[in-house]
Each structure stands twice: as C-alpha cells, then as structure tokens.
C-alpha cells in the first residue's frame, strides 16, 4: 500500500485544484467500479453496485490539501500569499511549495526582531528565484501545495497531505477488497473539504444517500503537552462520536463499534474538539442523512509531516469492509 500512499501524498492538489490527484486515483478504481462520474465541481464518484437488499451509502474521502495562493508579487520578485484552508504560520518558514507547473518556491519571512516570535502569514513570502516582478514565472491567483517527500519508518508514515490522501487510499483499498455488498456504495473522492466541506455537499445533494461515512484524519492526544484527547496513534481507527461540526448518528456509531468488535479489530472512540469533516456536509444535505466518520489518528495535522500508523490504515480498511459487507440497520 505504501507505493500508492507515496504516489498520492506527493501529488499536487490544493483545494479547488484537485485535477492531478483525480487523475492518479481514477485508474486505481476504474477496474473495480461499476460506474464512474466526475461532477461539476470535480468530485470523482465511483459506484459499486449492491445486491438490491441494502441502503445507499456514500463514502467520502477528500482529494484536496491545504495550500497557499499568490496575492501579490513585489517588484523584487517575491510572492506574498494567502492561505487555502487552515495553514498555521509556524509551519511556513523554511518550507517549500510547488505550483501546478512544477515551479518550486522556498518560504521566507520578514525580519524577526524578537527571538522565538512567529510572524503572521502575511509577513511571509515565497522566493521562486525570480529577480523581478517582470521575470517572475508565477502569477497572482496561482495556487501552490507544500512539497515534502513521503517517509516510511517502520509502521509510521509521514507526509504532507496525509490529510486526506490517506482517506483516499482507504477508500481505494476498500473498493478493491469489497467483493460483495448488499449496499449501493458510492465512493466520493471529494474536492474543497479544507475550505468548508464544499465538494461533499454537492455530491451528497446529487446522491441523496441513506448513510454517509467520511474517511478523514483526526488529531491525537499522545504527544508531549498535547491537548488531552483519548486517541493514540497505532491503537486502531477512531470511530467519531462528535466533532465541532457534527454529532455522528448514534445508530451508525453503534454499528461501527459492533462490526469492529465482531471482527476483533482495534478501535478507539473519538471526540474531536476542533475541526470537522465531509460527514457534516453529508449529514445536513437534502432531507438529512445518517452520517458518521472513520478517523485515522494523525499527529501534526496541517503540517508538512502529518504522521499516521500503517496498522491504523489497514484496520480502517478492514473496518470499512466489515461495515459495507453486512446489513446496516439504523
């Protein structure tokens, strides 16, 4: 699975500009899907047919990643930028970004006069090696993603955009392994999650599912001085109970938990105090949808070294296959 993870996490795909990621995912799922569709916003939707006895289930994993967009080019050729999604200023200095055309930039900041201080985002700039505004190869409005090679050390996997390419990998693997299902399952590789769960909203409007399950990362409480949270890396997929945008469907949470127990899969219960997922958009779409989320524990979310554990990834696939292989009675 690491080859696929590497391929996806190293791809360029800031919110709104997910074409490259979609082009990588499409051939992976094409042989296993009964039908494929790309909608108006760029969501890739794969339908796996059921035997007619189950529900309509939407699985959502988002293709987009956080990034930056050029807002101004100085006369010396430096690029000022704004954020695409939740970019923390302390993750910027010294990092590298890549534009759609392959141009790479390094991030600098205005002079720091107070040691240890972090400048706000607007006091950073990107240096693409241009000597002037006129010779700068980048334009205002161009989007860039962070650049960082994939790292696998034992079972720990680190990369930029693990959020949420790892969810995409889990969706792809589940589709590959899901031999028979009672359900009409729609795997949605969604766009624009990081800017407000926008892609999943229109996909859910289209599909009008009975059940929605997002696959996304969640933070952990297992690093030094962490905000207390009962989710650790490597202790299994986290079944979301609540986050700041959604309370998961109680019946669906119960089924997820039951399937994990029956199959002897490790799992944790997740209460996330800040953040939400595509499940929120699905839940309040149309006349309402039973929604939940399988979260992949992840350290350093929204940094360039988002870190997950391979066993959690494997067990997330196992759990989702269990859920989709059996009846869902809400």
């Amino acid at each position: 699975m690491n080859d696929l993870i590497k391929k996806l996490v190293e791809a360029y795909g800031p919110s709104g500009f997910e074409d490259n990621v979609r082009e990588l995912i499409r051939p992976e799922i094409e042989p296993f899907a009964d039908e494929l569709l790309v909608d108006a916003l760029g969501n890739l939707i794969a339908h796996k047919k059921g035997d007619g006895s189950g529900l309509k289930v939407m699985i959502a994993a988002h293709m987009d990643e956080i990034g930056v967009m050029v807002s101004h080019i100085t006369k010396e050729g430096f690029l000022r930028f704004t954020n695409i999604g939740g970019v923390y200023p302390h993750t910027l200095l010294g990092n590298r970004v890549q534009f759609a055309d392959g141009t790479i930039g390094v991030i600098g900041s205005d002079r720091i006069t107070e040691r240890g201080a972090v400048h706000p985002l607007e006091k950073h700039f990107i240096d693409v090696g241009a000597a002037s505004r006129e010779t700068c190869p980048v334009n205002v409005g161009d989007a860039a993603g962070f650049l960082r090679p994939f790292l696998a050390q034992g079972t720990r996997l680190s990369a930029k955009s693990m959020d949420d390419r790892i969810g995409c990998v889990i969706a792809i693997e589940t589709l590959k392994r899901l031999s028979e299902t009672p359900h009409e399952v729609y795997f949605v590789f969604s766009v624009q999650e990081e800017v407000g769960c926008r892609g999943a909203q229109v996909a859910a409007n289209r599909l009008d599912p009975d059940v929605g399950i997002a696959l996304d990362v969640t933070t952990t409480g297992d690093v030094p001085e962490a905000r207390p949270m009962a989710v650790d890396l490597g202790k299994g997929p986290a079944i979301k109970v609540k986050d700041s945008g959604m309370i998961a469907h109680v019946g669906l949470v119960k089924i997820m938990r039951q399937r994990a127990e029956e199959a002897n899969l490790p799992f944790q219960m997740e209460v996330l105090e800040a953040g939400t997922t595509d499940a929120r958009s699905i839940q309040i779409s149309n006349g309402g949808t039973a929604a939940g989320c399988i979260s992949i524990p992840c350290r350093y979310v929204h940094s360039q070294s988002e870190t997950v554990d391979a066993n959690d990834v494997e067990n997330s696939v196992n759990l989702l296959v269990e859920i989709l292989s059996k009846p869902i009675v809400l």
Partner: protein
Amino acid sequence: MNELLKSLTEAVGVSGEEKEVRLLIRDLIADHVDEWHVDAMGNLLALKKGTGASDLRVLVDAHMDEVGLMVTEFDSNGTIRFSNVGGFDDRALLGKVVQVGPKKITGIIGARPIHLTTSSQRNSVVKADAMRIDIGAKTKDAASAQLKIGDKAAFVTEYEELGPTAIGKAFDDRAGCAALIELLRVEPYPFDLHAVFSVQEEVGLRGAMTAAYAVKPDAALVLECTPAYDLPNKDDVSPSVALGKGPSIYVMDRTAIQDPRLVSHITATAAENDIPFQIRRPGGGGTNTATIQRSRAGVPTATIAVPGRYAHTPAMMINLSDYANVVKLAEATLRSLAPNIIQHSS
C-alpha cells in the same frame, strides 16, 4: 451620461426590500426577454431564449440589493436608533444623509460638531450603536408618526460623471445589474440565458441560493462590483484591484474558489478580444458564486467584476471604461461558452 447607471444607482433597494429596483429593471428588460417572473424571495428571473445551437442552461447573476440601515427604536427626543443591513465600517456612517422608509424621509446620521468635542473624543471611533438618525422630529411620537420600526434607510447620492469616472451609491451591485441588462438587450446567445437579478446578497448571498436551485444551470456567471483599494501607498503592496485597469476576475475569496476552467476561459477570451483584465487579489470578500456553485449537484461558476472604490459607503467611484469592458468581456465569454469548457477531462 449613462442613464442606466444613473437610474439604477439612484433607486433604493436595501437588502430585503428590493422592489423599487426590481420594478425598474423589469421595465428595462421586459421587451428583450421571452419570459420573466418574480420568485418567493423577490428575485427577478428572466429567460432569454437561445438560438438553439447549444442546450446548455446558463445563469447570469447580479444582485439588486444594497447595504443600508433599519429603524430599530425611537428615542424620547425623536431621534432614531438603527441597526445595519449588510456590512459597514461604522466610520463611514457619521454625518451622512439618508432616506428613510417608503416615503423616503430625509434624515441625518448626526455627528457631534468639532466645536463641542474633546481631543480624546476626536481620536476615538464612534460606534454605530451610539449614532442616531435625526429626521427633525422633536418627540418619540412625532418620529413614530412618520416612520415604523423595521423601515429601512439608504444613502442619498446623486449619480455624476467626472470624465472617465462615475460617482454614485450602490454601484455594488447596480453596476452588475446594468451590465446584465445590457447583456439581455443584444442578439440571442447559442443557449438559453437565465438572468437572475437577485436579492439579499449583502446579508449572506441568500437570494441567489433559491434562484440557482430553481434554474438548475449547467454553468453560471456572476457580475459584481468589487472593492478597489488602489490609492498610493508607500509599501510595496498590490492593489486588490485598480480602477481603469479593466474587468476584475475572481480566483478565490473567503467564500468560494471560482471554477478554474471558467476563469481560464474568461482570461483567454479577454486576451483574444484585446480587453484588459486584472486578477482580483485572492483573499477576503464573497460573491453569489458561493451559493450558486454549491446548489444541487454543483455548478461551475465564475465572477467578473467592475472595480469600485469606497464600497459600502455613500459614495463609490467606478471607471466607465471598466464598466464597458465588463459588458464586452461578459458577452464575449458567454458567446464562446461551449460545453467542453466545463467538462472534466478525467
């Protein structure tokens, strides 16, 4: 004198009460469209049938409403407390003339004269909740005999042209409305064009939400007036957009990422037709693209805007050639809008 801009900007249509603007626009377009109707929210929807060459459904939106105020309470001395309808910098309100209620009663947002202020008062910002509208009434009863709680107030600014520029209120978004009216007055497009003159944009992009739901378009174009901040500045910061440099093309704001394929189509169209354009600095703000884009199963949507200085104040300024170029660019963009432009290659 551009009579269209004059009549539209001088009309009053604070969010939620756009009827005066709607009636004006209805009369201006009725002879140029095949059908029109007003929906439950007050949006004016008009259909201009196409030549039949293309079966796309294309929505073009401009919002009729403007920012304004609403009467909330009468004080015993006859002055009027108010709340904002849409976003303001409180400093833009003080000392301004407003027209209040259906009878358009003249009022003043009173300011303490400089003779009677201390230096500390002059150096602090007066908050809107400390301001009152004064219609010259001496008592609560005298004020409430003329106005009701809930009545709206709009700025009073006569439209004027000064060489290449025009000054007026509510160019945001009557400039867009004027452009959309011009787009309806020309030859039919290859596809059916659904014009939406929408309500309640300034209070959260609300009218376009129901209009897009009803129209079910395949693609949409939003015509706006976007804030220009382009005055001289000692720092090397780019203007958001600048007056006189052509139509402003949105890429991303706080509420939406514009469809990249439509953005490319618009910029390519501008280049082909020698129309100047500028990419609006990405960042804050929001347009009806956000709600149209995410209606139903999603709609590829983009925004073209007339740059306007001093948005959400009584006096805005636009450049008339920018306005003319927005009309030209929007028309050229629509006429060359083929279905393959909005199809995803993978």
